[in-house]
């Protein structure tokens, strides 16, 4: 992955978030506060502007800038979480102008660690971690087959993890306030995480 591909990925995330904002917000209406799509869309719109107004030499720079912008524009729970994830990923990629799939997989795991450290959620808590964790594991496993294949595997695993949040009772985030009433609804954050990995697969294909 190089700076151009990183940019292409983030742009694809932005496009996907924009087109799916209503879905994300509707999912959040059921077990949260109806703002997840609005939040991410505001954030990624700002990210596009930030990326457009500068040039970047490395994918790390692109992704750190993406994360920093998300932190300062999104707010809510998803802003710090996604922001930290992209920042940790970007930082992990260091100053290389291209990174291979293995290094990128390690970066993704650094992002996941950041999310888990900041939010304290474990798999099964019905959060974005439930999509993120299997996606990283699948990516690592397929990293030997190259970025495109690994990204595809990650996206599929994210989708599965996302769908698996539906029967869970939430233990983190706003949905946890609902107790048993959170069961039967797909987690909005896990859904947006799936979009992120789908965009990666599409950009890398």
């Amino acid at each position, binding site marked *: 992955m190089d700076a151009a591909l990183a940019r292409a990925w983030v742009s694809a995330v932005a496009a996907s978030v924009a087109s799916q904002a209503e879905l994300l917000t509707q999912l959040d209406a059921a077990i949260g506060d109806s703002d997840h799509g609005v939040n991410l869309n505001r954030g990624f719109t700002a990210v596009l502007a930030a990326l457009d107004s500068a040039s970047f030499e490395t994918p790390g720079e692109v992704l750190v800038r993406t994360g920093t912008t998300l932190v300062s524009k999104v*707010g809510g729970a998803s802003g710090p979480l996604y922001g930290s994830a992209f920042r940790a990923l970007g930082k992990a990629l260091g100053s290389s102008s291209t990174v291979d799939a293995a290094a990128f997989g390690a970066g993704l795991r650094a992002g996941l660690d950041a999310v888990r450290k900041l939010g304290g959620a474990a798999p099964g808590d019905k959060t974005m971690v439930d999509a993120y964790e299997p996606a990283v594991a699948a990516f690592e496993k397929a990293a030997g087959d190259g970025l495109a294949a690994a990204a595809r595997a990650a996206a599929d695993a994210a989708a599965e993890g996302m769908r698996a949040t539906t029967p869970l009772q939430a233990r983190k985030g706003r949905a946890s306030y609902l107790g048993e009433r959170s069961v039967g609804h797909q987690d909005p954050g896990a859904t947006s995480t799936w979009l992120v990995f789908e965009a990666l697969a599409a950009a890398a294909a």
Partner: protein
Amino acid sequence: MKKFVNDPESVVREALAGIAAAHPELRVDLEKQIIVRSDAPRNGKVGLVSGGGSGHEPLHGGFVGPGMLDAACPGEVFTSPVPDQILAATQAVDGGAGVVHVVKNYTGDVMNFEMAAELAGDEGVEVHTVLVDDDVAVEDSTWTAGRRGTGATLIVEKVAGALAETGASAAAVAAAGARVNEGGASFAGALAACTTPAVGGCGFDLPDDEMEVGVGIHGEPGRRREKLRPARDIAALAVDAVLGAKPLSAGSETIVLLNGLGGTPLIELYLLYGEVAALLDKAGVRIARNLVGNYVTSLDMAGASLTVCKVDAELLRLWDTPVRTPALRWGV
């Protein structure tokens, strides 16, 4: 969606412009999205900052002024503010004695305020945090994000603000706030959901004969749904929930807030308060002070919350000191 807005995306910024126009005694920074007491920072005075998603007005911006908050940072509607904003507010009120953040316990608020506190620390500003988690509708277990911060926030901000005014240390101000929170318990119910400007719709749809019990202040569904009942039953339900979660010995002194969520007329809030006061009296609880009105709202939600906060003589004294803010004012 029927609202007095121009564009859902600019609601918060445009409302801030209105606050600026209405309250020349405050400094409103439209760029940084913060509301600051005009005489801040005051040398040697602890700065008191709060913030959270918009849509809860007058919380928090309406509580900025002498005797209460030094600054507020409103996020987008129902979305916690971002670290930059909180940092800007923190720096704007730092008079060298440290800054206290009053944070309602929501995952997003907690994380964004934490990040801001870290950034402020990097800039040499010592930040103490009071976490408010008074909503007893949520179980306080490791299996949830913990109790939400709701009505008690107002009492925390008033008491901490009063103490900050005396030149107390940041640690002492934070401790007083924490003491209020410790003694505070809230419970809310809703008859109709709210309408957010961005989405138009509502978090939940209620049939005509049902109510949501144990709601928060973000349009989220409550703990359960029940048949609509007379005001006296709803009052009993709230009093039981509050006293059940934080039992009070007979003779305890309290501050009671009967709070409207935004769409409930004052006549109903007073009616509810009458029921609540009678029930608390029967339980041997003394209401030393009370507030009835829309203070911690959820846009136009039809609903009400009860906050009962145990206080000692010192907290009561701090409650009574003069305050001069858009939404809470006495003694001056």
